[in-house]
């Protein structure tokens, strides 16, 4: 099917949830209320690292207006010695993250929670809870956690036979790096650091939970997966999943950070104890202290090339901060670092390092920007050393169909080379630069993902369509699904309503994450719609009294398949729906599939910056994102993903970082000092969509959302080098760092 034959796929239609969102009607997590509702509040640790010796809640319980108080004894314990995986999480860490058990592991770690008549009373009562702490030395930075005399966070954690803060290690090997480096004419090895950054969703975590006397529980919350909320809450509170109905509120951004629970199990326990619906919402300060972020990292990257630019070997070693409990995104770092290149000898190695910060959560292409950063910076330097254009160096080594990646897979057809060639030909790449301006390029990869999805497609009695899927819509996926369903049925997209079901009304569907939603949900919607079309053809066959195989579905109507089938006027969807009762009953179909065939995505970014040499401020003045998306079902929201990812990368590269005080407490837990890009910081963000359809997907979709974050860190950094001649290997490139680099250029090398 060529794109020209399509009416809706490839059209930027108006989203089904649009009018609600521009009028303030859309209900986000904090917008729900219930009769009899009370408010919950979390008491958080004032220490970065301490043993909890005793907890006394009696004064809080006696405080007027308090209805329930919970501590770790109200949350199910998952013993350390028994792994309990749930998706990429482990309930041993989740139970300790939502409520500290014997130890607090970061400043802001929950230690108790109160439900009371008002939020103010709950907050007041939290202060009456008496906790006896034995304060321990803390380790915030990676080097603090890896030092010989480092405070060990977990006495059960060992690495190579010794107590350690290293929770795990992952590596990929291809060929023999030592002999590869021996063949190289030029070898460059550099050390890099990146800082932990928060996902930065504007909507703080919030939920409303009602547990009835028979344990029937309803949860309204903002998450990237209502089924994840149901499963984790059931496990952490001891309820059965069938008693919990998790309703996905509209979600005000997640970027990976809402793929785990924080408040839902606490509100559930409080509601059960108090017999009242309980609402909880984090403040921004709580979000910054106790949710997310992604890991900070340090790394060493070494790449060797022939004089002509052919890479002979590449090696990367990464240390990623996990926060107080294991689970840094090591797989993304070591898997994606070298993925854009055809490298004969490669080795990546990554360590998961615990430290006294909040437990990391997924952030857009988790780990991949960290893995990619050093590689794309070293390639930039190699290109200069060899006198090659940096895009030519990448083209020379670009992975293609048939390339065996260092992390294992053999690539199918894909559009990485096209992203590089389009970048080279782009007028941005060839535009002149002014004084103090520089241009940088970089590429990046993300795995993308399939997994479980369910959909139901129902035809209404008046011949319109309701599609229900199981994935929270975080960036316009409902609009893409409406396009696909309308296309298949041959009707106006406005006749298709797309809803997100709750855990009681749609079959199991995995998280919104990993760039999987449109890939997976369009597969189940396509299958369901195909079944509906078969039913419609059968109904027409019955009316015409011909064989169902002699009926075609075209342009929104059943038609005889050819002259031999007979002469009948087409029967439209509306006509068939109106006659459904006499011909066989309701028309609808569902599909539940563990989808496969998501293929990796590649992109290349071009960034221009201008550096103010006096103030040290680097400003992005032009930016272009080029990416193979497989198929852009709804181009405007595809562009939106590319632009949003680039903006987050620019923030990570230039400004965002946590500042800790000497007691291990975050000093900038708000949007004023944790500086995410604002409108006046950015230029327009140009996009160039490349469509090399994924052959394993009915519409050719690959997944879009994660890749655009990956190359941005190094594209910005390489641009700053070209502007001022200083190679910075530590992020962010904030004004003080740039000024330091300008004053002692050689120190930054």
């Amino acid at each position, binding site marked *: 099917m060529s794109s020209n034959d399509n009416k809706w796929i490839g059209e*930027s239609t*108006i*989203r089904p*949830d*649009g*009018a609600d*969102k*521009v*009028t*303030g*009607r*859309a*209900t*986000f997590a*904090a*917008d729900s209320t219930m009769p009899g509702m009370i408010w919950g509040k979390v008491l958080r640790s004032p220490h970065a690292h301490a043993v909890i010796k005793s907890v006394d809640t009696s004064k809080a319980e006696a405080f007027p207006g308090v209805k329930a108080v919970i501590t770790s004894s109200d949350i199910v314990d998952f013993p350390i010695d028994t792994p309990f995986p749930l998706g990429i999480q482990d309930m041993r860490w989740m139970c300790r993250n939502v409520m500290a058990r014997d130890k607090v592991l970061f400043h802001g770690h929950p230690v108790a929670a109160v439900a009371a008549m008002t939020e103010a009373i709950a907050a007041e009562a939290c202060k009456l809870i008496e906790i006896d702490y034995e304060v321990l030395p803390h380790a915030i930075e990676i080097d603090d956690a890896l030092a010989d005399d480092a405070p060990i966070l977990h006495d059960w954690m060992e690495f190579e036979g010794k107590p350690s803060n290293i929770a795990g290690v992952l590596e990929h090997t291809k060929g023999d790096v030592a002999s590869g480096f021996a063949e190289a004419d030029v070898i460059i090895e550099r050390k890099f650091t990146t800082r932990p950054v928060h*996902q*930065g*969703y*504007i*909507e*703080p975590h919030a939920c409303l939970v009602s547990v009835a006397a028979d344990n029937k529980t309803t949860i309204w919350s903002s998450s990237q997966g209502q089924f994840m909320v149901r499963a984790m809450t059931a496990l952490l509170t001891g309820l059965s999943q069938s008693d919990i109905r998790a309703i996905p509120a*509209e*979600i*005000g*951004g*997640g*970027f990976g950070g809402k793929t785990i629970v924080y408040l839902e199990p606490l509100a559930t326990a409080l509601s059960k104890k108090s017999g009242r619906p309980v609402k909880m*919402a984090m*403040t*921004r300060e709580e979000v910054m202290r106790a949710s997310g972020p992604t890991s900070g990292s340090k790394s060493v990257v070494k790449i060797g090339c022939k004089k002509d630019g052919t890479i002979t070997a590449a090696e990367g070693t990464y240390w990623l901060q996990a926060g107080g409990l294991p689970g840094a995104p090591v797989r993304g770092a070591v898997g994606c670092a070298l993925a854009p290149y055809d490298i004969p000898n490669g080795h990546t190695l990554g360590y998961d390092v615990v430290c006294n910060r909040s437990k990391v959560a997924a952030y857009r292409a988790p780990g991949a920007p960290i893995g990619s950063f050093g590689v794309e910076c070293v390639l930039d330097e190699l290109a200069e050393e060899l006198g090659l254009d940096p895009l030519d160096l990448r083209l020379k080594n670009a992975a293609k169909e048939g390339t065996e990646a260092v992390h294992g897979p053999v690539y199918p057809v894909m559009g990485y080379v096209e992203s590089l060639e389009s970048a080279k030909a782009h007028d941005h790449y060839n535009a002149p630069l002014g004084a103090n301006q520089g241009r940088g390029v970089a590429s990046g990869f993300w795995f993308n993902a399939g997994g479980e999805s369910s959909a139901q497609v129902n035809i209404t009695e008046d011949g319109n369509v309701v599609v229900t899927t199981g994935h929270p819509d*975080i*960036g*316009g996926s409902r609009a893409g699904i409406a396009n696909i369903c309308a296309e298949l049925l041959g009707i106006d997209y406005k006749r298709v309503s797309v809803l997100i079901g709750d855990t009681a009304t749609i079959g199991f569907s995995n998280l919104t994450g990993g760039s999987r939603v449109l890939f997976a949900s369009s597969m189940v919607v396509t299958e369901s719609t195909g079944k509906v079309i078969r039913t419609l053809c059968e109904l027409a066959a019955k009316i015409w009294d011909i064989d169902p195989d002699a009926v075609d579905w075209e342009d929104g109507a059943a038609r005889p398949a050819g002259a031999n089938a007979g002469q009948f006027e087409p029967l439209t969807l509306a006509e068939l729906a109106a006659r459904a009762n006499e011909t066989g009953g309701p028309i609808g179909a569902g599909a539940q599939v563990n989808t496969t065939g998501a293929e990796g995505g590649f992109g290349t970014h071009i960034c221009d910056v201008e550096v103010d040499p006096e103030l040290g401020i680097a400003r992005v003045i032009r930016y272009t994102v080029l990416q193979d998306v497989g198929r852009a079902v709804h181009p*405007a*929201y595809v*562009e*939106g*993903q590319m*632009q*949003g*990812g*680039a*903006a*987050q990368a620019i923030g990570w590269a230039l400004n965002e970082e946590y500042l800790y005080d000497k007691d291990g407490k975050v000093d900038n837990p*708000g*949007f*004023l000092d944790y500086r*995410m*890009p*604002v*409108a*006046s*910081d*950015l230029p*327009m*963000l140009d996009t160039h969509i490349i469509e090399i359809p994924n052959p394993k997907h009915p519409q050719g979709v690959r997944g879009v959302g994660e890749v655009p974050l990956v190359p941005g860190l190094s594209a910005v950094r390489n641009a700053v080098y070209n502007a001022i001649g200083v190679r910075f290997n530590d992020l962010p490139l904030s004004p003080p760092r740039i000024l330091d680099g300008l004053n002692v250029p050689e120190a930054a090398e």
Partner: protein
Amino acid sequence: MAKLHISTTINGEPEEFLCAPNETMLDVLRNRLGLTGAKEGCGSGDCGACSITLDGTLVCSCLMLAAEAEDKEISTIEGMADGETLHPLQQKFLEEAALQCGICTPGMLVAAKALLDENPDPTETEVRFWLAGNLCRCTGYDKIIRAVMDTAAEMRGATK
């Protein structure tokens, strides 16, 4: 704490409410008046998700005491459309996909309307600086800025 009785006008309608002296306008709108279109992204004046206008002036409702609403005119996102007819900004945001998750959208729209009320022909730079207090983490602002500029052009065309 004894509650204060406040009489005000919200989206053109007279309104009365009781509030604590330290209660913010945002909390009153959301928790007492059922107007949940204004969002709390930070509670500290840094994100603009709670934007409303007070006698036509753009303010962060999280930084305003509800008691300050006495005898004033407040406009929120809920009052922006004219019945079934969306304001041109709302329509353009939909057409140009200027929202992804949509949590920043009510605040963006209220702020953008305040800009166009004051300056019907803003430059891109003026739009960017006017909206610099409205954070959006999803879009990279590109489509938002375009939608505001395009709406301004359209509204200028319509009034010529």
